[in-house]
């Protein structure tokens, strides 16, 4: 857990790509894309049916490790609108245990727009976007938004070539008022942190890619 401050709040970046908010005993994750594998299986690409299990297992372990009482999922929690109906019974049980043990909020994303059914199947509550202690939580950053904002959607990833070796890591992207979380799902790919789409979402303000490594938070300026 590597603490840093953002818009007056003390936050901590966790290595698997989650964000802890110790003052609220809260955990924030984005883009779980649960049941992505089964979505592709429907189309004939039989990806390993373990992604929801892996993603929720990881999340449950973080809830345990941080003692979080509150969980915020910043949208695209399921890969598609039918995803929650395809959850395997034992995986759904895991999810239900989690949503009943914590104050759990689903923020709707673009993949799971009609997320109302989510709460019926899996527990937790569903909101569009919400302001919490001065931080706005939503799925996709709004370049015109002046308030401090936490979001997901872009799956930022830092890609570098260092001494001839390619290194790619999920990363956070932070400007003075915007923090974009990496995707947390086991089968979610990534987009280069310096991608024009991300820079546009940050309204082209100076920003850093943040990577928690070995108890430190590494900062890499995103070139404008």
């Amino acid at each position, binding site marked *: 857990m590597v603490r840093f401050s953002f818009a007056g709040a003390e936050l901590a970046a966790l290595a698997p790509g989650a964000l802890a908010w110790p003052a609220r005993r809260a955990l924030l994750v984005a883009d779980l894309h649960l049941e*992505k594998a*089964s979505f*592709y*299986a*429907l189309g*004939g*690409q*039989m*990806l*390993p*049916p*373990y*992604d929801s*299990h*892996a993603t929720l297992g990881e999340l449950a372990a973080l809830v345990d490790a941080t003692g979080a009482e509150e969980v915020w999922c910043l949208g695209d929690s399921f890969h598609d609108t039918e995803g929650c109906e395809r959850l*395997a019974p034992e995986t759904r049980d895991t999810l239900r245990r989690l949503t009943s043990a914590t104050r759990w909020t689903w923020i709707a994303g673009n993949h799971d727009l009609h997320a109302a059914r989510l709460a019926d199947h899996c527990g937790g509550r569903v909101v569009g976007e919400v302001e919490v202690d001065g931080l706005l939580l939503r799925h996709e950053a709004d370049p015109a938004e002046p308030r401090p904002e936490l979001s997901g*959607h*872009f*799956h930022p990833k830092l*890609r*570098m*070539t*260092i*001494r*001839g*070796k*390619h*290194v790619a*890591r999920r990363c956070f992207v932070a400007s003075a008022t915007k923090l974009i979380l990496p995707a947390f799902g*086991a*089968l*979610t*790919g*990534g*987009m280069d942190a310096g991608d024009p*789409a991300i820079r546009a979402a940050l309204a082209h303000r100076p920003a850093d890619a943040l*990577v928690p*490594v*070995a108890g*430190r938070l*590494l*900062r*890499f*300026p995103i070139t404008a």
Partner: protein
Amino acid sequence: MSELPPILDRWFAGRGWTPRRHQLAMLDAARAGQSALLVAPTGAGKTLAGFLPSLVELIEQPADTLHTLYVSPLKALAVDVQRNLLGPIEEMGLPIRVETRTGDTPSDRKARQRVKPPQMLLTTPESLSLLLSYPDAAQMFAGLKTLVIDEVHAFAPTKRGDLLALSMARLARLAPEMRRVALSATVAEPDLYRGWLSGTGDLDAVRLVEGDPGADPDIAILLPHGTVPWAGHSGRYAAEQVMAEIAAHRTTIIFCNTRSLAELIFQDLWAVNEAHLPIGIHHGSLDIAARRKVEQAMADGRLRALVATASLDLGVDWGDVDLVIQMGAPKGSSRLLQRIGRANHRLDVSSKALIVPGNRFEYLEARAAVDAVEAGERDPDIFREGALDVLAQHIMAMASAEPFARDALLDEVREAAPYATLPAEAFDRVLGFVATGGYALRAYDRYRRLTEGVDGLWRVTHPRFVTQFRMNAGIIVEAPMLTVRFRNGRSLGKIEEGFAATLSPKDTFFFSGLSLEVEGVKGEDLIVRATARPARIPTYGGARMPISTNLADRVRHFLHEPEQWPRFPDDVRDWLEMQQRRSQLPAPERLLIETFPREGRHYMVVYSFEGWNAHQSLGMLVTRRMETAGLQPIGFVASDYAIATYSLKPVTDPRPLFSPDILEHEFVDWVQESALLKRAFREVAVIGGLVERQHPGTRKTGRQVSFSTDLIYDVLRRYEPSHLLLEAAWADAKARMTDVGRLGRLLDTAAGRIEHVALDRVSPLAVPVLVLIGRERVAQGTVDDALLIEAEALVAEAMNER
């Protein structure tokens, strides 16, 4: 001997030719109804020998159905053969249609070919497999008489060979009268190929026909100043002499071992091309239109020289070539002969070749290759068991053609030589994988692609899976590529995405014979402009061809037999004599290891001669052990001949570093963590049909990024480590990327047969290996975390304004 029909006799006579002995022997085999393997050198009229029996049969018994199917590993070869066949057919006025069918064939012609096939159809293994996936295949091939496989030595022991073997087994069912004919360059063990061709391993079913040997090739080693450099591996120092040879010959092909080297050599030659002779460049990354243009220019005799890579290895006739130059080490005697065969397609005249060794070890290797060619020694071919990802693709092809019974298909598959001993259990796993992904969870039974009906037949559940299969079938899986383009849209070719990622705007690199400056990346294109500034070199990645075992053995013997040395140039002889005085010479069957300090570091050099791939693997493993032993290794370099490690503390006893148990523990751990296995997994996932290929132009841009096979690999390894595709990837990684066989041989030698020599300074033999340090980039032994921390420090230093 068989007699030819009069019309063919007259055709031969009209050209002043008589049929060659082996051409008639092929006809004999056909008349006896036997399959045949023709082994003959380039220029022996192999193609005509392969088609002669079909011509005779079609003259004697004209038929309007598909008679002969020809399969070659290269589209270009199929086109070339069509051209060469159409000549005689027209001259004799025979009513025989010859057509090609490849990925480039327009779809209306493909559809027509299935309804009304020509008498002779020329195709590739992939296109044949696709043909067999159509329901009308049974009808199309029912009357097929002959299957001709060209250049069989180039691909029988590969995955494409697996696919063709499976297709052959199906063809044998559809066309009971079909004979199998294969044409091959000279190989070490023809019986291996007879067994492969027969399918069942029945050698007697395949008659071996051997062509007459051609005139011995005339191979020389080019030493511009009578000396061989210590370092380098390209022969770049010889540009002026190579240019002089080009000027002195009609047409020269200059072979380079890698694409990036070809670009460099082309630049070097251009710089000394004072007479402005027309010179071209040809390699597999260049734009296809550019390649076709160069090929045509060669065929027309408009080029004086062509700098090329393995993309020109195979049998297409490149016109009037009278000299072949090999830049750098030849790596194998068969490979060298193939390349020399590009020169002078006439049997009675010697083909002329020059080798330009890049350093002293490469001189020994070049000498070894010349000796091996003179002794008629060929590189060994390694046949392995059929790949399971290829079998998965084939099962989907068969299901797309028609419903099948499991037992019948298993029997049929076992008639393909690479799958002859396939256990029923393995077949069922592959079948399960094709149907539902083959997971222990059985999560996808609802979404299955294949289902077993009450009639016991397996069938595809929805036509869209058939379409999907046909879109994605194929054995060649390329790394993700970017197209190199000028801003006006003109494409120059493709480079690997990984290399492109190392380029920033204003960076320069050589490509397609030009020096290019990067402007930026746009979607799937790398936008460039021509520049006069000097350039970096593309590193295209990809596996390197290691020195063959037979050449390595010869080099070992050279080192240990001073009676050979008078044949060598003075400086090479001095080098070996000095090594003998100062240290030892490596003996065959023993493993020489030298240790010495130099400039505050401690070096260990291992002379193991097992080729670059095995050395690269061992280098990784040994530096890990050194790390554990607290020797503080900094890095290592590997060549085809040796491995050198350097560390802060000295290795006093190398024996524990090389104990054979390294293969049991560390090797497995290392391969599983390495990028090798992920790369192999990506390939088997595409071939096996787990994921779709990215088709050009359809890659998602913008916000939504599709999944990567690396993530699938991570999930699968964690939750189902015994999954079929992980096993298939593992088999590939072992066989092709790490050369585990040769690694094992090296460690066997090491067990009890290490000669450790502790020196006070660097030995002569170590110099060519040590100079690689700093040129080869090594980040081994360093984990990603440490690299990132280092990168951040660098960025901070560079960005610090105070």
